[in-house]
């Protein structure tokens, strides 16, 4: 499969630049002056104790929340305040902390929904069942099936999402997010609820995805073994602010980070 990324004109321009992102919920400041820069092709981790503001930041980047202030610049364009579906159309895909598959739809349909943006036919075409519909629908379905086969999911393509075991659901969710053809993929706790063996499989999957699709990935995760093992760079948040940045090695040695996680178990993988 070919590389699908449309590379930006200048190789030094970051894919995502977040500047001074702040979010107030009433009087509560959940995120304060969040800064981050991600270059194309990077795999970056965002970690921090619960309530640090990680998912809130994700939600702002993907458009579910409107920032109280700050900018989110995707490939040179400010996307702060856009509707979530517009953000997706701009090229950001995401998965969710609690798996949000379309439970009553099949695996294939879950992925086909991701193709809706590029369906290529209108509702009128569908009603009339004209040649444009037949051709495009078949093309769409074949693409979806091929896509599923990359993830070894084609055997279960007709299974309803709610009948799948947890690990497979996670895989389908990642596949579905990828099917929307993003440039930047946001993964929110992809390893949640997984045992060590599943985590290894997941690490392989993410590496594979990154290489195969040339994606830029930003992920939130609590499982330190996973984060340290897979991320090239890590940003650490606590109480809504960035408290540290660096490579996994640097982060593990950073006293502020250890303090933030004090009592929370392995800051050393």
């Amino acid at each position, binding site marked *: 499969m070919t590389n699908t990324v449309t590379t930006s004109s200048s190789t030094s321009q970051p894919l995502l630049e977040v500047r001074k992102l702040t979010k107030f919920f009433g009087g509560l400041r959940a995120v304060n002056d969040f800064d981050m820069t991600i270059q194309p092709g990077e795999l970056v981790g965002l970690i921090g104790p619960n309530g640090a503001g990680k998912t809130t930041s994700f939600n702002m980047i993907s458009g579910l929340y409107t920032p109280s202030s700050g900018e989110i610049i995707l490939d040179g364009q400010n996307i702060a305040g*856009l509707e979530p579906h517009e953000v997706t159309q701009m090229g950001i895909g995401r998965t969710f902390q609690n798996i949000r598959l379309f439970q009553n*739809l099949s695996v294939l349909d879950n992925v086909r929904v991701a193709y809706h943006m590029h369906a290529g036919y209108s509702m009128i075409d569908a009603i009339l069942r004209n040649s444009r519909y037949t051709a495009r629908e078949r093309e769409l*379905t074949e693409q979806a099936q*091929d896509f599923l086969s990359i993830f070894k999911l084609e055997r279960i393509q007709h299974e309803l999402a709610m009948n799948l075991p947890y690990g497979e659901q996670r895989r389908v969710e990642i596949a579905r997010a990828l099917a*929307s053809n993003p440039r930047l993929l946001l993964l929110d706790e992809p390893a949640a609820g997984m045992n060590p063996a599943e985590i290894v499989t997941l690490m392989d999957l993410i590496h*594979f995805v990154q290489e195969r699709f040339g994606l830029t990935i930003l992920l939130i995760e609590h499982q330190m073994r996973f984060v340290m093992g897979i991320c090239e760079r890590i940003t650490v948040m606590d109480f809504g602010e960035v408290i540290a940045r660096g490579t996994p090695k640097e982060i593990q040695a950073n006293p502020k980070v250890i303090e933030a996680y004090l009592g929370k178990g392995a800051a050393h993988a």
Partner: protein
Amino acid sequence: MEFFFGSFVKIVAVVAWVYGLLRVMGNSSKLVKIVGIVAMFGIVQVAILVKIGDDAILNSFDTGLLFQACTMVMVALGLNLIYGFNGQFSLGQYGFYGIGAYTAADITYRWTNGQASGLIVAGIGVVLIGAVILGLNRFLSRFRGLPVLSAFTLYLIGVIVAGVVAYYVGATIGDALTPLFGSTDAPGILRSDIALQLVFVLAVLIAGIFAAEVAFLFGLPVLTLGSDYFGIASLGFTIVVNTLMVNTDTILPFPEMKGGQGMIGIPKVTTWFWAFAFLLLVIIVMRNVIHSSTGRAIMSVREDETASKAMGINIANYKLLSFVIGSLFAGIGGGVYAHYIGFLSPGTFDFIVGFNPLIIIVFGGLGSMTGTIVAGFFWMFFLEGMLRVLLGQMGTDAPTWRYVLYPITLLLMMLLRPKGLLGKVEWGFLRPEEVTPRRTAEMLNSATGVMPTVK
């Protein structure tokens, strides 16, 4: 007891007929499809015409049930689209049913009384309003973050302007056509039967589109409220429409509708052919929408709005789309109903009876089109048909006993089989199109199901 047995046979026959129709429509061969549909139409038509002894196989009572079942199914399918497939709880379906009925009735009523203005004004009106809505939609899509209330105001102004223009233009044209009607003694070309049939079809379609346009205006701001509140607001809509029906001759300028007394004199143009045709239209359109990318987008909104947004789907648009199409079906059903029964009264469309489509779709299975169709026919023939007559023989309490037995049946259904009669099962034509798994060489080689490692 003879009646009981006869009714039982009829119910089974009807369900079998539905099954047969759907099977035949689902056949891959075009020839089989066409022949089959004609055959299915023919079977019933013959049963209506051929007499055994004194009565036809399907006597007038049965035919009445049949027509009512068809219209009820159309209304219920619309609601299933809005609620079963799109997840928006609407109690407003009967409001649109009523709008469709009265609109279509008025057009043909005026026509049969020598007035073309009804048809012309309505026709121009829906076209103009539709154009305004579509045009404004395209124009407004250039603005992002436009508050819904502002958009609504703009649409409202546009629609009102279009309506006024349509009225004046249409009335003038309509008046100009009056001579072509001739008089009752020397009827002109516009009074012919063929003309009436054509006007009927146009009236039903216009009524449906008008209902859809009202749905657009109403749904645009109200769908943003979220499912529960939308339900209450839609219930309010039904009540407001009902109030307007009672006041058609006072607040609204339609003296022929006679407000609370009800409108009479509607030409009874609905025949089995038309009922069947419109039913088929609704079924085909609904199925084609559901089994397409649009349909998947619609269902994704029901499943998980947040995830749907993350898939690039503008959920507000798809909620509105489902609501508009669902109301279109209800409006068409109303038009067909009005011309079967010949008179309309506001009591037919009050919000208590407005629960019927909801009960039908839940009874048949929320995400199942087949379930709705079967439940709709079953409802008519069993409950309204058999039970009503049976209870009628038991005393004057019959109408009340119906409303005692329906809830009991419903409650039992909820407790024993909440998924509904058919759950998510579909028959024949309505089944999702087969997707054959792809088998490329690459896949056949690596059939172990293990993820590739890239290290």
